[in-house]
C-alpha cells in the first residue's frame, strides 16, 4: 500500500516541478520581451534548474544571454547545471553552445580555447544520448577548425552519422543543415564532386534552400570565399535550436 502512495507523491512532485518550470519559462519570456534581462535570465535559470534536459529552455536562455552579453554567467550556470544533473544530454549540449556563443565576442586565441571546450561538452552530450542534434552539432563544429588541425575527417564522420539518422526519420526542416554541412566538410577535404553531390541531394529535398543554391552556383575562389565566410569564427553562428521543437 505504501509503494503506490510514494509513487503517486513522486508523480505529483514531478508535475508540480514541471508546472513551476513552465511558469518560470513564461515569466522569462515576458521579461525578455520587456528587455528586462536580469529577470529574464533568472527566470530561465529557475526553469532550467527544474527541467535541465529541456532543450527549448536551454536554447532560449542562451539567446537571451547573447542579447544581454552575459556569456560568463551562462557558462557558470551550465557548469553547475550539468554537475547537478550529470545524465542530462541536452544540458551538456547547451553548455557546449554557451561556449560557442561567446566565440565571436572573444579574441582569436580565446576562440580556440572556447571552441575546444565546446567540443568536450558536445561529446559528452552524444555519450549520454546519441542524437541527430548531437552529431550534427559536433560535426559542424569541427568544420570551423583550420585544416591544419586535421579535424575535418571527424566532422565528416559525425555529419554522416547525422545524415544516417535523419534518413531513418521523417523529413524535418532542419535536416537541410546536414546536407549543407556535410557538403562543406567534403569540400574542405578537397572532394568537390562529393560535396556537390551532397548539396544536390539536399536541394532535391529542400528546393528553396538558399545556402544550397548558393553553394551549387559558385565555383573556385567564389565558392571558397563563400564557405570560408560561413565558417568565419568572428561571425556569430545562429545557435537557436527552435527548429528542433517546432518541427517534431
Amino acid at each position, binding site marked *: 500500500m505504501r509503494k503506490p502512495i510514494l509513487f503517486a507523491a513522486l508523480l505529483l512532485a514531478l508535475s508540480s516541478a514541471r508546472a513551476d518550470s513552465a511558469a518560470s519559462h513564461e515569466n522569462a519570456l515576458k521579461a525578455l520581451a520587456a528587455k528586462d534581462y536580469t529577470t529574464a535570465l533568472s527566470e530561465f535559470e529557475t526553469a532550467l534548474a527544474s527541467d535541465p534536459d529541456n532543450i527549448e529552455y536551454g536554447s532560449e536562455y542562451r539567446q537571451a544571454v547573447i542579447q544581454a552579453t552575459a556569456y560568463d554567467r551562462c557558462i557558470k550556470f551550465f557548469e553547475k547545471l550539468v554537475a547537478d544533473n550529470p545524465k542530462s544530454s541536452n544540458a551538456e549540449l547547451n553548455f557546449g553552445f554557451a561556449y560557442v556563443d561567446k566565440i565571436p565576442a572573444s*579574441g582569436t586565441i580565446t576562440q580556440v580555447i572556447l571552441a575546444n571546450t565546446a567540443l568536450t561538452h558536445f561529446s559528452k552530450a552524444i555519450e549520454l544520448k546519441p542524437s541527430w542534434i548531437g552529431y550534427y552539432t559536433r560535426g559542424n563544429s569541427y568544420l570551423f577548425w583550420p585544416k591544419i588541425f586535421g579535424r575535418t575527417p571527424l566532422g565528416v564522420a559525425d555529419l554522416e552519422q547525422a545524415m544516417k539518422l535523419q534518413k531513418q526519420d521523417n523529413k524535418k526542416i532542419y535536416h537541410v543543415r546536414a546536407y549543407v554541412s556535410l557538403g562543406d566538410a567534403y569540400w574542405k577535404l578537397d572532394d568537390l564532386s562529393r560535396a556537390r553531390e551532397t548539396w544536390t541531394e539536399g536541394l532535391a529535398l529542400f528546393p528553396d534552400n538558399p545556402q544550397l543554391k548558393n553553394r551549387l552556383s559558385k565555383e573556385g575562389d567564389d565558392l571558397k570565399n563563400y564557405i570560408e565566410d560561413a565558417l568565419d569564427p568572428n561571425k556569430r553562428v545562429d545557435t537557436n535550436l527552435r527548429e528542433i521543437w517546432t518541427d517534431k
Partner: protein
Amino acid sequence: MKDARHGIVRSILLSSLLVTGAFASAGIEPIGRGFEDLTLKAGLIHKHSNRVFKNPYAHIMAGYTALGAAVAVGDYNRDGFEDLFMTDSKEDGRNHLYRNNGDLTFTDVAVEAGVAIGNDAQDASADALWFDYNNDGWLDLLVVRFGHNQLFKNLCNGKFADVTKESGIDRYMNAITAVAFDYDHDGYVDLFVGSYFQPINIFNPDTPRFFPESFETANNGGGVIVFHNNRDGSFTDVSEKVGIKLSGWTLDLGHGDANNDGWDDLYVACDFGTDHFFMNNCDGTFKDITSSAIGLDSKKGMNVDWGDYDNDGLLDIYVTNITDDYMREGNFLWHNNGNMTFSDVARETGTYSTGWGWAAKFLDYDNDGWLDLYVVNGWVSGSDESYVPDIFAMVTRPNVDFADARNWPPMGNKSLSGYEKKRLFHNERGQIFKDEAPRYGLDSVRDGRGIGVADFDNDGREDLVVSNANSAPFFYHNLLPAGPDGPHWVELVLEGTRSNRFGVGAQVRFTVAGKTYLRFVNGGNGFASQSSTRIHLGIADRKVVERTEIRWPSGATQVFENLGADRIYKIVEGNPKPAHFSAKATK
C-alpha cells in the same frame, strides 16, 4: 671613356623609358616592367641572421625572436641621395651603413663610419632610426636593440661617435622600435622607444616567466619610454610625466596629427593585447583615448603607418595584425572620422588580409596622387611541417601559465605563417585597394620585416628596400613611367629653422587642379623601418601644383604658388623662395 660608356647606357635606358612612356600614354601598360630587383647590383649583399640565444630557454626563444632585420633611410652625408642603414642580429653580425653612390649602387661604409658593431653577447640589433638629436642638420643614428640602445652622433665628416652614455638614454631595455618627433614643439625632436620583452636580460634570464602572460591582454611586456630632448645633447625619461605609461608588448609606434591641430598624436601597436591611441594635449602631455578613438582590441598589432589614403584631408592609420587560416584577426585600416574617432575599413577596402603582417607603408608608387600600400609579411618559413598544432596544443591545455617560457613548445625547423606573399595594394581612388604585387614582381615569399620607401635616384619615383629576417634584403627600383611624359610629381626637402631641422611633423597641403592632398614628414613610422623624410606627391597628368601650404611644427605657415612638376624643391622654414635640389643620379 667611362663617361662616354655611361652616356651610351643612359641613351639606351632613356630610349627604353621613352618607349615605356609611349606605351603608357597609349593606354597600354608595361607588364612586368614596373620594378626591377637591383639588390645585388646595388651592392646590398649582406644577409640578415636571427639571433641564436644561449640560455636554458634558447630552443623555445628561437621561435619567437626571428626579428631584427631593419632598414632606415636617411641622407646622413647630405649629398642629396638617400642612404641606408640595415641591421643584422646574430652575435657577431655587423650592421651596414650603405652610402648611396648616386648611381643606384651603395657602398657599405659602416666600419669606417664607426657604426658597424651593433651586436654582441648581450645586445641584439632590432631596429634603427635616423634623427637629428642635436638639431645640427646632420642625421644621427639610433640603433634600437634588445639590450642597450646605441646613439651615434654624426660628426659631419662621414664618421659617427657613440654618445649613448652621455645622452642619458642608456639603460637595459628590450627595445624593438623607435620614432622621433617634437611632441612639445620646443624645436628639438624627442625620442619614443617601444620595447617588446620587459627589461629583463633575455640573454641570461633569471626567471622563466618572461613570455606574454596572455595572448590577448598581456601587460608584462616592455611598454614605451618617452625621452624628452633636453636640447643639450641629453634626454630625460618623461614617460609618466607626459601620460604614457604602458607595459604591453610594443611592436611599433607611429605618430601623426589626427585632428589637424598641429600637434602630433601617437599610435602604439602591441602584440598580445590592445593597441593604444594617445592624443597630444598640446601642452607637453598626452591623453590615452584608446577606448573612444579605436576601441580595445585583442589582436597582434605589428605596424603603424599614417597617411591620408582617401585624400579627405585627414590622416588615416594602417596597422597589420595576423590573418591566417588559424587566426583571422584582420588588419586595421583606421579611417579618420575627423572627430578623434576612427573606423576600421580594412574589410571594405580589401586591405584586411595580409597573412602574418609586418611593416606596411603608404607610398604613391605610380604617381597618381593616391597613397598605395606595400605590406610585407611571414613569420617563420621553415620545413613543410607546421607549428600551428603545437602552439594550439599548449593554448588548449587547462590552466597553462603562458608567461612561463618552459610551457611554450619549441618551434624547431617547423613553419608558422611562412612563405607568405607580399602585397602591393594599389589605391583605386580611395575606395578599394587592388593587389598588384605579382604583376610587378614584388610578391616575394621571404620573411619580410621592414620597408624603406625613398626616391633613391632622385627621379621622382618611389623605390623600395625590404629587410627580411634571416635572409637577404631586396632593393626594388621603380621603373614605372614618370616625368616629362607623365605621370608627374614633386618632392620637397624641408628644413626647419624655428622647427626641428628636418621638419618632422610638418604638414604639407598641395592643391592640384582644385583638389587638396595632405602629406606629412614622419620620424620613423613603420615596423623595423624608416622611410625618407622627403615629401613626395604624385600629380598624374598635371604639370603645376597651384598651391603648396606648409604648416611647420613651430606653428608657422608658408604658402608657395605654382610649383612646377617633376622637380625636387628644398624649402627652408621662413624663406619665401624654394630652391631647386640639384642632386641628380648619374645613371
